[in-house]
């Protein structure tokens, strides 16, 4: 359905001249450099899959989508969508895919939503009967009725996004490309859009490729995640696998039975403010990252020390009253991945 092989795209960037006469010198050719937006992206998506493309801003997600939808021509590599090369058969591919850019609208600002959908219908040459059926589906699925006759300029962001999604569905696309379809939306609208996408996927077998920064989108919709960073696919698999692979850092939270830390003089009357005078707990393979009263947080890497070994080590050194193991949530994993790239 979608096959991408070693796709590459670099943009030429002209550095703006500054200083005296910059306005005039801006007309002259400046120093140009190349920014590699997509370095080497390969993947295959089968019909009926729902795949999320994750990655920090500037990782190359949007550029990849633009090449797959025929907007941009890559520098190297190949891609086929439904057996066609999108930048060579742009119009043929466009007939069979639906594209929504969350940050922009394809609707007519001054016209009621229903008129916009009707115009889209004529642009794709959708037969009357088919249009009526699809419109009915969209009205139900996306709850368009309350604002169907309102000019697009008066719609809220959530309403507009539902309208845009409807406009992308009028011509029965086999594949949906959604670039941040839930950006800036409230939870109710997000849920509505996710339900609609899942319904389309289940009943019509629509293949969905979406980029997002909202991991709830991924968790509710996509069995598969493509993590793109620095223009490369760094992970291709399930969301859980992503955690196992990149989220090896865990935290052991222990409550000590005795407020004083061994090796240190017990603090006077256990006064809370004196607790910070106590030194940190010392356990091989872990670092204390936080302490509050009797409670201590110990960070460790699962690849270096197993949780059971660590617990045994702690228990042999300190009197314990309670302990819990905290796994990183996927947001933390992704956030730390994103943070690490900014050096």
């Amino acid at each position, binding site marked *: 359905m979608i096959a991408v092989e070693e796709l590459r795209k670099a943009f030429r960037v002209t550095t703006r001249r500054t200083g005296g006469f910059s306005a005039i010198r801006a007309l002259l050719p400046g120093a140009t450099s190349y920014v590699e937006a997509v370095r080497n992206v390969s993947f295959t998506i089968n019909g009926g899959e729902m795949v999320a493309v994750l990655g920090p801003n500037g990782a190359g997600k949007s550029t990849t989508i633009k090449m797959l*939808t025929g907007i*941009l021509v890559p520098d190297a590599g190949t891609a086929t969508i439904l057996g066609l090369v999108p930048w060579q058969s742009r*119009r043929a591919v466009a*007939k069979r895919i639906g594209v929504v*850019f969350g940050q922009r609208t394809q609707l007519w600002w001054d016209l009621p939503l229903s008129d916009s959908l009707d115009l889209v219908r*004529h642009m*794709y040459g959708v037969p009357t009967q088919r249009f009526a059926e699809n419109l009915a589906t969209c009205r139900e699925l996306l709850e368009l009725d309350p604002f169907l006759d309102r000019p697009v300029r008066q719609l809220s962001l959530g309403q507009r996004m539902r309208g845009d999604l409807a406009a992308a569905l009028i011509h029965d696309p086999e594949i949906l490309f959604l670039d941040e379809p839930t950006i800036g939306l409230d939870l109710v609208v997000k849920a509505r859009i996710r339900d609609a996408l899942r319904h389309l996927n289940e009943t019509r077998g629509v293949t969905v490729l979406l980029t997002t920064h909202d991991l709830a989108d991924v968790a509710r919709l996509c069995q598969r995640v493509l993590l793109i960073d620095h223009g490369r696919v760094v992970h291709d698999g399930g969301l859980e696998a992503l955690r196992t692979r990149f989220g090896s850092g865990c935290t052991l939270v222990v409550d000590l039975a005795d407020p004083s830390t061994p090796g240190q003089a017990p603090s006077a009357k256990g006064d809370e403010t004196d607790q910070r005078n106590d030194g940190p707990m010392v356990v091989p393979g872990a670092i204390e990252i936080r302490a509050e009263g009797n409670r201590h947080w110990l960070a460790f890497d699962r690849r270096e020390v197993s949780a059971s070994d660590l617990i045994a080590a702690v228990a042999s050194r300190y009197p314990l009253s309670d302990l819990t193991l905290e796994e990183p949530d996927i947001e933390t994993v992704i956030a730390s991945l994103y943070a690490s790239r900014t050096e």
Partner: protein
Amino acid sequence: MTPSSVFLPALYVRLAVARVRGQMRYRVGFLLMILGVFVANAFEFVALLVLFGQVKVLGGWSAHEVALLWGMSQMSFAIAEAFGRGFEGLAPQVRSGEFDQVLVRPLPVFFQVFASAFEAHRIGRFLQGATAVWYARSDPASIPWQASHWTTLIFAVTTGAVIFFATFVLGGAWALRVVDGQELMNTFTYGGTTLASYPLELFSDPIRRAATWILPLAFVNYFPALALLGRVGPPGMLPFGLTPIILAMSAPVVAMTYLGVAVVVWDRSVMRYQGTGT
């Protein structure tokens, strides 16, 4: 299922009607817009008349003759603006990324940009141009205004509209290549109408040549007006020593050639855009 094919002229009409209907939702605003365009251009016309209060002739042209020239260029420009606004307003769309939307639809890019705007309120400028021509007609010393003259006028205005339209297309192509190039392009479009509003005798030789051979403004109204008024034109200034009538008759060929060049440049610019993403 395969969608049935799309008939582009019908789709254009549908999109244009939708656009005007959208504007008509604010009926008063729409009428004010027409009035605004009319009045803004009326000032320019009045300025012209004030000028002729001081001088009897300008480069050998009387007030009525210059009014004809001015009216013709205004009418042509109004038509071009009404139909070519999609190309003219492209720069912000390229900058915001809205232009990408055009590339994911199963229609020719040129058609979509052409059909993306139809500005009915440009009729304000057209009416102002028509007023100037009506004023020119009141001069008993000039043209007898028989049917053939009217035909020539209509033909010339249409040809002029094609030339201005092609200039807008070139402007759109420019916007695809240079994001911040709008100002420079305005020099050619709006600057072009101003130039075409006055007899070319007033300008220096390089400007006259540029207005004939590079941006064929002289074919918009100058040569046709010379032919209409039965003037011979300044000696040695017309290309190849051709008569104004022959030049006026060749204007449609020049206009279509110019439009053809503009479309080729446009197509190449779209390809370049897809290659670079600007």
